[in-house]
C-alpha cells in the first residue's frame, strides 16, 4: 500500500485534474468537438496536466540524481546554474525582443532559455574535463558560482530595463504551466524521455556513487563517465523544462528528500517513488493554482513551496 500510493495518486491526478478548473465542465461536452468545453478540456487542460506530470516527474528524478551524484542535500537540478542560464537567456531576449520578432517568434523564447542552459552545461563539462582529479564537490561549488554570475548578469539587465520589462522577467521566473495543444510536449520530450531512461538505467550506479566514490570505483562504476552522463541528462532535461515552464526549483529539491525519508536511500525504489510522487505533487499544486483564485491563476512556483514545505518539515522532523 505504502509503496503503491504515489503511483496510484499520480494516476488519479492525471485523470481527475483536467476535470476541474476556472470554469465547470460537463462530461458530455468533452466529446462534442463543436463545444467550447471540448477545446478547453482537450487543448488547454489535458496538455497542461500532462506537462505537469512530466515536469514533476522529471524534476524529482533530476533532483534525486543530483543529490546522489554530488552527495549534497542541497543539490537540485537547478543548483548548477541551469535555471540561471535559462533566465539570463530570457532576460536578454526580453530586452532585445522587438527587433527579432518574426514567424518563428513563438519558440524563440524557449530557444533563448535553452541556449542559456547550454552555456552553463558546457562550462561545467569543461571544468569536469579539465580537472579530472577535482572532487565532485568542487564541481558543485563551481556550478554554484556560475549561477551567481548568471544571476548578477540578470540583475544587470534588470537594472538597465524599464519597470515593465522587469515585471515581465519576474513573471517569467514565477513559472507557468500554461500551454496550448500538444506541440510543446513534443518539443521537450526528446530531452526528457532519454534523461529519465538514462537515470533509470543508472539506478545501481547512483546507489554506489551516493555511498562513496572510492567504493563505487572499486566495484566497477565508471565514475567520470557516469558523472558526465548523469550531469548531462539531468541538465538537458532541466534546460528543456525550465525553458518551457520557467524555474520551478522546489520540486527537484524537496520531493527526493521526502521520498528518501519514507522509502530509504536505495535508488531502485526511490526512482519510482520520486517519479510518481513528483508527478502527483506538481499536478496537485497546479490544480490548486487553477482552482483557488477567483480570477487569474496563481503561479505554480508559489503553490509548490506553500504546499510542499509544511509536509517536508513534517517528514523531516516527525518523531522517530
Amino acid at each position, binding site marked *: 500500500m505504502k509503496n503503491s500510493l504515489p503511483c496510484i495518486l499520480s494516476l488519479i491526478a492525471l485523470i481527475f485534474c483536467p476535470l476541474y478548473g476556472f470554469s465547470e465542465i460537463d462530461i458530455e461536452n468533452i466529446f462534442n468537438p463543436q463545444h467550447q468545453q471540448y477545446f478547453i478540456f482537450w487543448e488547454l487542460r489535458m496538455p497542461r496536466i500532462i506537462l505537469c506530470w512530466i515536469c514533476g516527474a522529471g524534476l524529482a528524478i533530476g533532483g534525486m540524481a543530483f543529490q546522489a551524484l554530488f552527495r549534497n542535500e542541497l543539490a537540485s537540478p537547478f543548483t548548477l546554474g541551469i535555471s540561471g542560464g535559462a533566465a539570463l537567456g530570457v532576460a536578454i531576449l526580453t530586452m532585445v525582443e522587438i527587433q527579432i520578432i518574426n514567424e518563428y517568434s513563438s519558440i524563440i523564447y524557449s530557444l533563448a532559455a535553452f541556449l542559456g542552459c547550454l552555456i552553463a552545461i558546457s562550462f561545467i563539462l569543461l571544468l569536469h574535463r579539465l580537472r579530472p582529479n577535482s572532487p565532485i564537490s568542487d564541481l558543485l561549488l563551481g556550478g554554484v558560482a556560475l549561477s551567481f554570475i548568471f544571476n548578477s548578469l540578470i540583475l544587470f539587465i534588470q537594472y538597465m530595463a524599464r519597470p515593465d520589462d522587469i515585471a515581465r522577467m519576474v513573471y517569467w521566473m514565477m513559472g507557468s504551466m500554461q500551454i496550448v495543444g500538444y506541440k510543446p510536449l513534443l518539443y521537450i520530450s526528446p530531452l526528457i524521455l532519454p534523461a529519465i531512461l538514462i537515470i533509470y538505467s543508472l539506478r545501481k550506479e547512483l546507489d554506489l556513487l551516493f*555511498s562513496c566514490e572510492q567504493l563505487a570505483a572499486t566495484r*566497477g562504476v565508471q565514475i567520470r563517465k557516469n558523472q558526465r552522463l548523469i550531469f548531462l541528462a539531468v541538465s538537458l532535461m532541466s534546460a528543456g523544462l525550465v525553458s518551457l515552464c520557467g524555474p520551478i526549483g522546489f520540486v527537484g529539491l524537496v520531493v527526493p528528500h521526502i521520498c528518501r525519508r519514507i522509502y*530509504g536511500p*536505495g535508488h531502485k525504489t526511490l526512482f519510482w517513488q520520486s517519479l510518481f510522487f513528483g508527478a502527483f505533487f506538481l499536478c496537485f499544486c497546479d490544480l490548486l493554482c487553477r482552482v483557488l483564485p477567483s480570477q487569474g491563476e496563481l503561479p505554480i512556483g508559489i503553490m509548490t513551496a506553500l504546499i510542499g514545505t509544511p509536509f517536508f518539515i513534517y517528514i523531516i522532523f516527525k518523531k522517530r
Partner: protein
Amino acid sequence: MLTVDKLSYSVGNKTILADINFDLQHNSLTCILGPNGAGKTSLLKQICGLSKNKSATIKFGDEDLLAMTELQRAALIAYVPQKTSSLPDFSVREFIQQASYCHSAKTLPIDLDAILLTCELKTIEKQSLSTLSGGEMQRVLFASSLYQASPLILLDEVTAGLDPAHHDSICQLIHKTKELHKLTYLWVTHDINAALRYADRILILKNSKLIFDDTPDALKNGILLSEIFEKEFKVLSDEQGQKYLI
C-alpha cells in the same frame, strides 16, 4: 596473474612507494606485512586504480590494468578498504548486493544468502549500515568482496577489530574460498601469526620499499621479523609444533 613492475609513487617530495616489483601466482594467498606508514594501503590503492600513476606497469595476466575502465578492473579485482567513509543508510543486504555491480544478473556466480550465512550476517541482514558495530562492518565489507566474485581480492586489514573467534573464522574463510573458488588473495595485515600460518607467500614493505618477498618459512624463526619491525619477537610453539611469534 598480477604483475607489478617498477611501481613508484610520491606525493610532493615524499616518496610513498619506491620501485616495487612483484607478481602474484594464480590461486595463491599472499600477505603483505610492514610497519605503519610503510605504504601498504597505498600499494593496494595503486593496484586497484584508486590513485593513478602513469609511469608504472601493473598487469593482470597480459592486460594492462591501468588502461582498463573501472568496470573491467572490478570484474578482476575486489578491494576491501582499510577505512570507509560514512555510508548512506543502506541495509546490510542491499549493500552487499551492490557489490555485484560488475556482473550482469545472469552470470552471477554466487548466492547472496550463502555468503550472508558463512559470514554470520544472516541475523543482521536488515540492519542499516550506520548501526553496525566495528567488527560487523568488517565482516560486511569482506562479504561484499566475496560477492563481487572477482578472481583477485585485495584485503586491507580485514581482520582488524574482529574478536578472536571471528578472526579465526574469517581467516579460515579466506583459506577455504581460495581453494573452493580458485581465488587469489593479496592480504595486508599486521597479524603476523595469521600471515605465517595461511599465506603462501609474504611480502614485506618498509620505508616505501619492498624488502622481503618469499615463503613464510623464511620468517618463522622470527629473526628477520624482529629486525624489520624493531621489536624482539618471541617464538613459542604449541603441542603440534605450530610456531607462534609474540
